[in-house]
Every structure is written in structure tokens, then in C-alpha cells.
């Protein structure tokens, strides 16, 4: 039986792929959109039987991240998997399907005064894509990334078997935490179908304290001053060319007092607003996006190296993004990336290119040096012995 027919027996929505659906130019032969966990498992089982290379797709907001797949026989579209399965407000826990857009999840949780404390840098992005890329924004300073908030995960393995880890209680150390392993795994270990999250109450009040900084030294000092003060920020963001914004959350009186203190620490001309400044939590503009992680004090060296003209953001916790413009030639990008990695290496930091034009990808290493790559390959071989799950998309050619 042809793969299309075999898939059509187990999933109502199966069709040939179209050129416009290419994953970084690799056109999928087939597209399947399972409507529930059982269908997703069946689709994965048929894909295994037919030896199909599978790439998951959510809302396509990050489909251009990473490297192109070596093959894409089957694109699994998660848009029908969009239910909020459970929201137990009293337990501060919610379970959602992978295709549910993050903003819709946010709206549903907000109806009961709660939130998943993750920013949504790219509008429309889904729960599954957020986990698969480990994406987070400014709130990571206080709440961490998906790895800190996913408490349970349901996946379909390469062989079509359904597996769960974690559960629906926050405090739980039974068994390996596959949720953390799957965060940022780019669809190379299995298909994420459902995730259970730890939630937080929506704070009664928020304030953003924004001030101008002049140069790397000033930016570093501002971030450090806030960090080592008792104002307990939820986020501290540097945005090029020279702005530091501090987010404070809590009860109205507390936030107002802390905002005043923060302004006092930073700059008497600092602006205090209730709403986020323009561009808050968005990736810097450009056609190449570099994701950086390094200890907070490396901000100074980083900004010195980048200079004033490169678009960059930096979360105080030690995580940033650099955006490079389309007119920058591939060899210039490669040169800058090399120097960036040189600076970061001295700070135990890393720089990973999320997306870049094809001609740039051709002359750079997206991932940089990958520690423990041998172990990663061995884990991959266990989960996907046939190398059919998003092959070649990930670090080390995984």
C-alpha cells in the first residue's frame, strides 16, 4: 500500500504536500493532521512501517529554525491538536495539546486569573513549537524557560508508541524527566502531543521601569544594580541601542513602591509605565537570529564586541538575541559569529544561530561547539534508531 493510502486509513486529514509547505526548502511528500493522540500515534506508527522521515509542524513560526531536514516524507501538522485538555486552577496546573496557540492558551488561563509564565516572542506560535525550541522571553529571568514549567509530557515515539513522563503535580521526582529532555529538541526525539504546565497567578499589578544607558559599561552597571538590590524584578531587559527595562510584578502598593525604588537605583529620569514598552520581548529585527547564553556579567564584553549598530537584546539572567540585517554579507556574518563565539568561550557561553538565509547557513556552523555530542548522538540513536525524526535539523547533524 502506498504511504498516502496507509496514512489515510488511520487519519482523516492526509494529503500530498505542496511546494509552499517546504521546510527550509525541503518539500514534504505528504502532510497529515491528526486530530487526537490516538491518530497521532497511528500516523507515527504508519510512518515507521513505511520508513518515512517525519517533521512536525505547528504554526510555522519557527519552522525556519535550525538546519533543513535531510528528508521530509511526512509533515505532521498539529493544528487540529488544539485543545486545552485540563485546567485545574486550584492546583495551578494546565494540560494542553501541542497545536494550541500560546496566546489562546494564555487567554483561557486568564479567564481564571492564571498564566503560563512564558513570553510569546512570535505571535501565533504553539505549545508544541515552544517546547520543541525551548523558547522563552524576558520572564525567563524569574520563571525560567519551558524546561522549568513543563511538569508532564506526552509524546509519540518514533515507533508509534505513546509515552508519558512527569505528571500533573508540580512536585514529582518519579522517573526520568523526559519533559526537560524534549525542551529544545527540535522534533528529533519524538512527536510532542500534550504538555502539562505549572502555572502562576496573574499578578495584580505590573510596572515597567525604563531608562537609557550609554554604552556597555553603563548597561552592565544598570543590570547589576537592579539584580543585587532587593526589588525582586521579574525581568531585566537590555535592548539596543541603549535601553534597560525592569519589569516588576506583584500587589499594587508593592509594585508602585518597588518601581520607585528601581527608578531611584537606575536614573531619576527613568520612565515608569503600566504597559510594556514597544518591542518588549520580541526578537531583534534581522534575517539572521543568534541566540546567546552566558553569565550575566558577560553583557559588557558582548556589547563591546558587537558595537552600537548591531541589534541585540539581553535578559538579565544571561540570555540574549542578536539580529543581523539582510544586507550583511555571509562572510561578514561568519566573521561576526566567530568573534562572538570567541568572546563567549571566555565566559562559558554559547551562541546558536536560530535562523539565517540559505547563503549564510552555507558558510556558518549553526550550533558552534556542542559539549557531550557523543552522548547526544547515543540518546538520539535510542529514541530514533532509523534517524527518521527531523533528520539533520539539529546540533551535530542529529
Amino acid at each position, binding site marked *: 500500500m502506498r504511504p498516502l493510502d496507509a496514512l489515510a486509513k488511520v487519519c482523516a486529514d492526509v494529503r500530498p504536500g505542496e511546494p509552499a509547505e517546504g521546510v527550509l526548502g525541503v518539500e514534504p511528500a505528504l502532510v497529515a493532521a491528526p486530530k487526537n493522540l490516538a491518530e497521532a500515534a497511528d500516523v507515527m506508527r504508519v510512518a515507521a512501517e513505511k520508513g518515512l522521515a517525519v517533521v512536525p509542524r505547528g504554526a510555522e513560526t519557527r519552522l525556519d529554525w535550525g538546519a533543513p531536514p535531510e528528508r521530509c516524507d511526512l509533515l505532521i501538522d498539529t493544528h487540529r491538536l488544539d485543545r486545552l485538555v485540563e485546567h485545574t486552577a486550584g492546583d495551578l496546573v494546565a494540560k494542553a495539546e501541542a497545536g494550541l496557540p500560546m496566546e489562546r492558551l494564555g487567554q483561557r488561563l486568564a479567564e481564571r486569573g492564571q498564566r503560563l509564565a512564558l513570553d510569546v516572542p512570535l505571535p501565533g506560535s504553539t505549545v508544541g513549537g515552544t517546547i520543541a525550541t525551548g523558547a522563552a522571553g524576558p520572564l525567563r529571568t524569574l520563571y525560567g524557560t519551558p524546561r522549568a514549567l513543563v511538569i508532564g509530557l506526552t509524546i509519540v515515539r518514533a515507533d508509534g508508541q*505513546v509515552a*508519558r513522563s512527569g*505528571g500533573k503535580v508540580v512536585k514529582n521526582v518519579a522517573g526520568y524527566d523526559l519533559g526537560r529532555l524534549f525542551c529544545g529538541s527540535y522534533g528529533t526525539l519524538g512527536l510532542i502531543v500534550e504538555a502539562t504546565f505549572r502555572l502562576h497567578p496573574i499578578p495584580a499589578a505590573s510596572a515597567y521601569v525604563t531608562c537609557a544607558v550609554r554604552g556597555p559599561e553603563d548597561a552592565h552597571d544598570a543590570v547589576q544594580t537592579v539584580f543585587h538590590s532587593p526589588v*525582586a524584578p521579574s525581568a531585566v531587559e537590555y535592548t539596543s541601542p541603549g535601553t534597560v527595562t525592569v519589569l516588576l510584578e506583584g500587589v499594587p502598593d508593592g509594585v508602585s*513602591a518597588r518601581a520607585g525604588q528601581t527608578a531611584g537605583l537606575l536614573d531619576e529620569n527613568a520612565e515608569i509605565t503600566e504597559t510594556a514598552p514597544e518591542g518588549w520581548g520580541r526578537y531583534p529585527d534581522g534575517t539572521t537570529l543568534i541566540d546567546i547564553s552566558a553569565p550575566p*556579567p558577560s553583557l559588557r564584553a558582548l556589547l563591546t564586541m558587537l558595537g552600537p549598530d548591531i541589534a541585540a537584546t539581553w535578559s538579565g539572567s544571561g540570555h540574549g538575541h542578536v539580529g543581523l540585517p539582510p544586507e550583511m554579507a555571509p562572510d561578514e556574518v561568519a566573521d561576526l559569529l566567530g568573534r562572538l563565539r570567541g568572546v563567549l568561550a571566555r565566559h562559558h557561553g554559547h551562541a546558536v544561530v536560530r535562523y539565517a538565509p540559505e547563503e549564510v547557513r552555507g558558510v556558518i556552523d549553526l550550533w558552534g561547539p556542542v559539549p557531550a555530542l557523543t*552522548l547526544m548522538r547515543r540518546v538520539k540513536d535510542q529514541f530514533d534508531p532509523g534517524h527518521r525524526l527531523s533528520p539533520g535539523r539539529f546540533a551535530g547533524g542529529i
Partner: protein
Amino acid sequence: MESMLTALGPRLEALLGDGRVITDPVRLRTYECDGLTTHRSTPGIVVLPDTAEQIAAIVRECAAAGVPYVARGSGTGLSGGALPRADGVLIVTSRMRRILEIDVPGQRAVVEPGVINLDVTRAVRPYGYYFAPDPSSQQICSVGGNVAENSGGAHCLKYGFTAHHVLACEVVTPDGELVELPADGPGYDLLGVFVGAEGTLGITTKITVRLTRVPQTVQTLLAAFDSIEAGGTAVSAIIGAGVVPAAIEMMDALAIEAAEAAVHCAYPPGAGSVLIVELDGPDAEVAAQFTEVERLCRDAGAFEIRIAADDAERALIWKGRKSAFAAVGRISPAYLVQDGVIPRTVLPDVLASIDALSAESGVRVANVFHAGDGNLHPLVLFDDAEPGAEERAEAVSGAILDLCIQHGGSITGEHGVGVDKSRYMPRMFTDTDLDTMQMVRCGFDPAGLCNPGKVFPTPRLCGEVPGKRKGPHPYEGKADIF
């Protein structure tokens, strides 16, 4: 196997030098159990390395000889995770106690695995920082052990577990290689799965921990209620109001009685339950939320509320709670400590079921729990002089775990699975779930020599077709598994 071990002894001595290899049977007995004393096994050899390179060399020797090995920090674990193997090597990290680096601007410190949890906080406190994970054993437990067990503590309700406070680990892999596992590096988050893997994926030799800013204010109150239900109502009301306290702890009448007998904590007489609520953070936040918590406790029927005016009074409030486990020894000759988790909202149902279990079986159960996150620590009391009493207590303790599973909870919130609870894993997870977790293990440790027999009831044969097991068990005839 024994001859392999015998041959290994001199090789390890050559590696480590005098006094770092223990083979004397009497001295070996010192290491026969960890904090879970009901499981004992005298290790074949104990080694006391000083460096990561030595641990790597030890692991390579064990791998070459096919000898299993177990890492041990301070040996305070409560699930037998560091239970040694009679046919194996126990690698004790207690000599590796250096704090290598304190980086205040970077809000991190680098420590060796044998460093005591509280010593990290002591070292960084002068800079206004602390290490947030605070298991009850923090005065003696090691950071390496915290990493293995993903330790929590009373304050993890707000601050999370060890996994959230470890930025990187240097690890000796079961191949005997030293690798760095960062939290935020390119590629898979291997650190994320390593933390909490109970020492089955390798041995950590250097840990970069996140330091947390000491909060401006800490406020603590003790509220006494007529019943456990009233206390539970207060917990739900506090969480429902959007307050995230640093800790919410609860004790029932029997636990209060024990604490009173042991440390004279003078909790309000006649209380059916007491609640300890601690808030921390900026002054203005804490002040506003504390007033609300106080009101919610009164609304739920608190007949007495005490507010700690200073650190000494706070310590007094905590004294009863912190002594509760040991204190139970005052009211019972022996007891089992259970560690289960339930969704917070089913707390009243589960406590009623535990009551019923206790009434049916005649086995007394004292309840102490981290109520904010639904982590129960029932203390199941028995008289070890009475024939069959321990078995009855075991049965009640197991039935409590079943209650946790039925209500969508977990068989362990912080003590780990170890040897103690691996038999319960199939009640919480399917065979496929467990098989999938063990794919990670097969990636790290295909030979299954690194702390074998822990966490999983049945080891997966690495490299086989999933779901099909053929031939004898890999450990058959070599050692007892369970």
C-alpha cells in the same frame, strides 16, 4: 564477580594511593545503607577519591572489569538511591568538599559534589545570596546528592527544585569520560534529565549552582485549626487568592503531639491541625500579602494565629515542624516515612481516606506535609516488637501511595524512587513509559553498571527491540535485584 572485584582492589589502590580504598569488612559496614536503613548491603569496595579525574579513572576500571558502581555523597537519601552493591564499588564523594568559585555578579557558584548544601549558603550569605534548595537534611546532605535526587525542600513551592538551580554539571559518564552538561548549551538538555536521575546516568564531579538573592523580608505565621479540613480549606484559599508563599506546611494532631513531646514547641493546645505559612520578598509585597493570608486563615476557622516577630520566634515556629520526623520516635517505637504527592485540591479527600485506612487497619498515621504543593509525608507508626506490625505498617504505607496515584499524583515528591519504590513505578507509569525513560539510560550507560537496580523495576536491555525481552535477565545469577 567476586574475583573481578578482588582484582580491582589493588588497581584502585594504585590509582588513588594509600588510605583511599577501603576493603576491610568492618569499615565497609559503615557504608551499608544510606538514610533508608531498612535496606542494607555491604559494599564490595569503597573508594574515597579527591578529584574528578580519579572518579573518571575509577569508572573506567569498573567498566573494563564489568563491575557495577554506586556514587554516594553524605548518604542521607531516603529511598536507598545510594544503597551499595556487594558485588560493586561505592564511590564516596565526601572528600570533594571545595567551593571552587563564588561569582556574585554572575549569581553563581561552582562547587565539588561533596560540598554540604548549607555550606554553599553560608559561603555566599555575606554577599546577600543563598542556595535555594533546602531539603530538611541540608546541614549534612551534599550538593552532588541534591543533583542526583533533584532535591526540593519546604521552600520549593516558590523557588523550585535543584533542577532549577543548577546551571551546569561536570559529569563522569559511564564511559569514564569527563563531560560538561550545561543547562543552556546547544543540543539536547542532557543536564535536564541528568538532574534527578538518581545517579543512574553518571557521577557529577563539579556543579555550577545558581545563587538566589536573599529576600528583603521574611514573615512567618502559625495558624491553629480545629480540624485538618479547616487547615486544608485555608491552604486552598491562600493559593486561590493568587498568593505564592515561600512555604506552607501542615501538621495534624498526632504529629503535633509528637513534636510537643520532643521539643516542647508549645503549639496551640487542642489543635486538630496547624499551618505554617511563610512569605518572603520585598517589604511592601510581603506586608500586603501577609495581611491577606492572616484574614484567609481566620475565615477558614483558625482559632489562634501567631506571628513571628523576629528570627528567634520564627525558629520556634519551625522547630516543631522540623523536628516532626524524629519526634515521632517519642510516641511510637518505630515508624515509616512516606513521601507521596497529590494535587492540592484533593487534599481533604485523600486525608479522609488515610484516616479511614488508619481506622480499618488500626495503624496510626501522623501527617506532616508540604501542603502548598500537595507533598504528603505520612508517618506510619508501629511497634517493631509486635509480630506482623511492620508488615501492617508497610501495607498502609503502600496503600497511601496507591491513593496518591489514584488521585493523579506521584509516588515521590522529593525522596526519590531508589530501591524503595521501584516496585511502585509500574503503578504510575506504563511499561512503554518506563521503557522510554530507559532509552536515555541505554544512551548513557548501555552496560548498566552505573547505580544499577535503582528507579526502574526491570532494566531495559539496551539495543534490543523495544517491548521484546528474550533470554535470561542481564543480572540473573549475578546479584539480587529485588
